[in-house]
């Protein structure tokens, strides 16, 4: 929970699979750094997976979600599907050419690559239902 009023209004919700492989941990590291850099705010995918109402409703109401899966197993994608959330920007790190393994010594180069991919996915033009989703969100603090 951000220490600010109306924190959800203009923020990108970043959801990382944070799984037990290099790509899972890369998703986590990129989400942390993107949060620290002010791109968006990392949020608890586990809370959504646990179907906790505050988490699920937050994901339904936020204007922009960046979901990062490490690999094609797609745990983040499955969690969002189970929660009934359909509009989100989606990145799979193995699709970027990063090989999945158990080497947890993450390279700065890979982290930067992932962050750029997340930013690019979120900056693509919004259309249709997603565009109307933006317009119904109120501005922050009047």
């Amino acid at each position: 929970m951000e220490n600010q009023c109306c924190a959800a209004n203009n923020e990108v919700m970043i959801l990382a699979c944070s799984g037990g492989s290099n790509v899972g941990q890369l998703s986590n590291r990129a989400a942390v750094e993107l949060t620290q850099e002010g791109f968006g705010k990392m949020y608890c995918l586990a809370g959504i997976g646990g179907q906790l109402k505050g988490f699920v409703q937050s994901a339904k109401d936020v204007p922009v979600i960046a979901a990062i899966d490490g690999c094609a197993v797609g745990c983040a994608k499955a969690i969002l599907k189970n929660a009934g959330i359909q509009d989100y920007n989606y990145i799979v790190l193995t699709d970027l050419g990063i090989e999945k393994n158990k080497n947890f010594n993450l390279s700065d180069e890979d982290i930067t690559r992932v962050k750029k991919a997340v930013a690019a996915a979120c900056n693509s033009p919004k259309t249709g239902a997603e565009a109307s989703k933006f317009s119904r969100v109120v501005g922050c603090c009047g």
Partner: protein
Amino acid sequence: MDIKVLGPGCAKCQQTEKVVKEAVAETGVSATVEKITDIRKIAEYGVFGTPAVVVDGDVKCVGKVPSKQDVKKWISK
């Protein structure tokens, strides 16, 4: 019925409280409306932002001012 409006106190949070109270008054539902401003208590609901509305422990909306119509729907069930 127990309704909580979560928000530290900006204009949108105050507007949300107003909308909720008006909806309760207009429907005649027996309900208590409590404004939660303590950040630590708000955090217990796991919401991504505020304002947020909770009806009988169920988080109904997050990060926006709900319409009065929506609030009436939530409290009429």
